[in-house]
């Protein structure tokens, strides 16, 4: 068999060269079975891959197909038995060898031979193939571990990137399990502590129907609650994998800034070798916890800002004969400090009315204090009968007296009813020009002018006159409305303001201000600043009747 020896050695070498390059165990059979099949006297070569309980996961073959009842024969032969059915297939003998490797599915190779085969030689060849296979699978496992490490590194990097990109807790809570499943686990549940109790806020499974079944089972939810409560108290309770219908589970507390903000539960169906190390799960949970905590802090801060902003604005506008008034205020998407926009409407004893609007530059506590002062100063003076110019001069003096570097833009629209409609005297101190939305006609822009208050010893104030016919609407606003910018840098004022106004013509006035502010905010997206809009609509010109 000298010549055959040389042939087999070459085949074995080719086999070794090939198997060291495969990337999946599925590729192995086509490399290791055919050379055995090629040996003289070999009738069939059957390969069996075993599960952890020794049942057979996969069947491979050359020669006689391993299908149907032959699989029962193969399993019996793999177990060392000699079922009579094998002879019926023309097998004189079946040689068997097996490899087992920690953390890998074991395998059996069966070589069926006829009477002509040189059994000792074939047994030696089978032994050599088993060794090559064992080494190939060991290398595959090593490469798989390296790949798993790369995947985990990538997941941590992507998790940090994705979670840092949003401050919206709901979105963060959805992202966390969606990134983990199925990259590192088959299922992932995120519980967040709210009002002192854990609540399931997000859950993902590679098989959503299975998850739905689990969460619909009271025994499962009770067990999950027990595990989560334990984790919150720092007690690691063992998970009942059978009850959870999974191979393994891991529970990680979500700890951020020394506080446990929730719990993550991972469900694994995969082999133990493919379950990430606990240190990795802890690391992922720590990043998730920080993202959740950042989001919660941001949301708390934002709620505080919105509440404080509401305190700086009138809770309701006065009713004025012959006029309708409505206002809208939107806090910018990413704003976490109180802004300086303000507005008010003042009804004077003589039946005239004034609408005022302003914007203190900057944000924060100092800007908020100035905002309150500016609004109340202007409103009080106007109500006492001071002219807008006089009220602005007093505010200018006060700002300069306080020594603040902050300046204030302001506009006051004094309105009185006349036979032809409503006469509006607009006084501006560096404030954006108003818009008149005609009842039947295109929107018209008024004049701005003047200089912001608090800058000059003697204020620069500009004045202009507008007349509103019945149904016309005066719209005054802060620059957040007009200067919100789209992704291409184009401003709402230049691109979409007129279109929005045309669309909103004839709408009820409260709807008009709300939708106009919303259109600008949608145009500017996350970059939008605060927006204040105040609209006054001329009703029927006869006193006492409201325009409908």
């Amino acid at each position: 068999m000298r010549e055959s020896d040389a042939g087999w050695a070459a085949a074995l070498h080719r086999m070794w060269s090939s198997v060291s390059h495969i990337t999946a165990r599925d590729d192995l059979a086509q490399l290791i079975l055919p050379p055995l099949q090629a040996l003289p006297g070999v009738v069939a070569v059957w390969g069996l891959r075993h599960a952890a309980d020794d049942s057979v996961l996969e069947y491979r073959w050359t020669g006689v197909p391993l299908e149907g009842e032959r699989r029962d024969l193969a399993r019996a032969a793999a177990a060392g038995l000699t079922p009579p059915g094998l002879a019926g297939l023309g097998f004189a003998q079946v040689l068997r060898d097996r490899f087992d490797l920690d953390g890998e599915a074991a395998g059996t190779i069966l070589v069926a031979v006829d009477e002509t085969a040189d059994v000792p030689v074939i047994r030696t060849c089978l032994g050599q193939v088993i060794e090559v296979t064992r080494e190939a699978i060991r290398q595959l496992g090593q490469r798989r571990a390296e790949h798993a490490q790369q995947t985990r590194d990538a997941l941590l990097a992507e998790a940090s990137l994705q979670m840092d990109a949003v401050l919206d807790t709901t979105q963060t809570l959805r992202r966390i399990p969606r990134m983990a499943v199925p990259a590192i686990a088959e299922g992932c549940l995120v519980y967040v502590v709210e009002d002192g109790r854990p609540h399931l806020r997000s859950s993902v499974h590679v098989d959503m129907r299975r998850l739905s079944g689990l969460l619909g089972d009271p025994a499962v939810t009770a067990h999950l609650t027990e595990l989560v409560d334990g984790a919150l108290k720092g007690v690691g309770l063992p998970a009942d994998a059978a009850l959870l219908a999974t191979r393994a589970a891991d529970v990680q507390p979500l700890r951020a800034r020394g506080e446990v903000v929730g719990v993550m539960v991972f469900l694994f169906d995969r082999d133990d070798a493919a379950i990430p190390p606990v240190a990795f799960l802890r690391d992922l949970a720590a990043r998730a916890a920080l993202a959740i905590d950042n989001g919660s802090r941001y949301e708390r801060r934002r709620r505080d800002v919105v509440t404080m902003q509401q305190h700086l604005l009138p809770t309701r506008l006065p009713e004025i004969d012959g006029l309708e008034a409505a206002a809208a205020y939107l806090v910018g998407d990413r704003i976490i400090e109180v802004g300086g926009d303000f507005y008010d409407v003042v009804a004077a004893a003589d039946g005239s009315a004034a609408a005022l609007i302003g914007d203190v530059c900057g944000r924060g506590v100092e800007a908020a204090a100035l905002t309150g002062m500016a609004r109340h100063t202007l409103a009080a003076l106007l109500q006492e009968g001071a002219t807008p110019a006089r009220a602005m001069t007093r505010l200018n003096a006060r700002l300069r007296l306080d020594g603040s570097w902050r300046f204030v833009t302001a506009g006051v629209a004094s309105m009185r009813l006349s036979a032809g409609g409503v006469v509006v005297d607009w006084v501006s101190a560096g404030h954006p020009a108003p818009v008149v939305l005609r009842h039947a006609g295109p929107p018209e822009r008024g004049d701005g002018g003047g200089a912001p208050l608090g800058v000059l010893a003697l204020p620069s104030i500009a004045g202009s006159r507008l007349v509103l016919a019945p149904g016309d609407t005066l719209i005054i606003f802060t620059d957040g409305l007009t200067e919100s910018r789209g992704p291409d840098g184009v401003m709402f004022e230049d691109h979409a303001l007129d279109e929005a106004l045309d669309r909103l013509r004839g709408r009820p006035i409260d709807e008009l201000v709300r939708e106009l502010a919303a259109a600008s905010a949608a145009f500017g997206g996350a970059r939008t600043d605060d927006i204040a809009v105040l609209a006054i609509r001329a009703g029927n010109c006869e006193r006492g009747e409201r325009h409908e």
Partner: protein
Amino acid sequence: MNDLIFVVEDTDEDVEAIERAISRSHPRLRPEFFRSGAEVLARLAEPGPVRPWLMLLDLNMPGESGIDVLRRARADRTLDDLTIVVFSSSEDQAETDACNAAGADSYIFKPLNFSLFQSVLSQTLDYWRSRPRSGNVARMVVPPPGESSAQT
């Protein structure tokens, strides 16, 4: 179960990434690619014994959307055994809920990083191959060209 899977994806980059990822993790699988919902629905309607055991479905496609394909496939009782995996970069929870309600077996998020992309695909395929609906895999071994004279 056979080795055939359908991939419905209209983006060139994603088609390339899916092809590369599957060829590395599951070289025995035969992915057949479709660039639109209409294409795959026509193919699924063809009579013939070879049906895919799994379909990987993108959601946002011109014309018939992924969810349309999903609904049409789930309305066809002859496709009951087909595992449908929605593979999307959409973060819209309403879309996820709609897919689950329409009978998707999985809704998997497309990662940006290729290593993660490959791992996500591989784990999804492994999961569904191991489920009872799929059954055990049995395949004839085809030797590499010139390797041996063994019968296959």
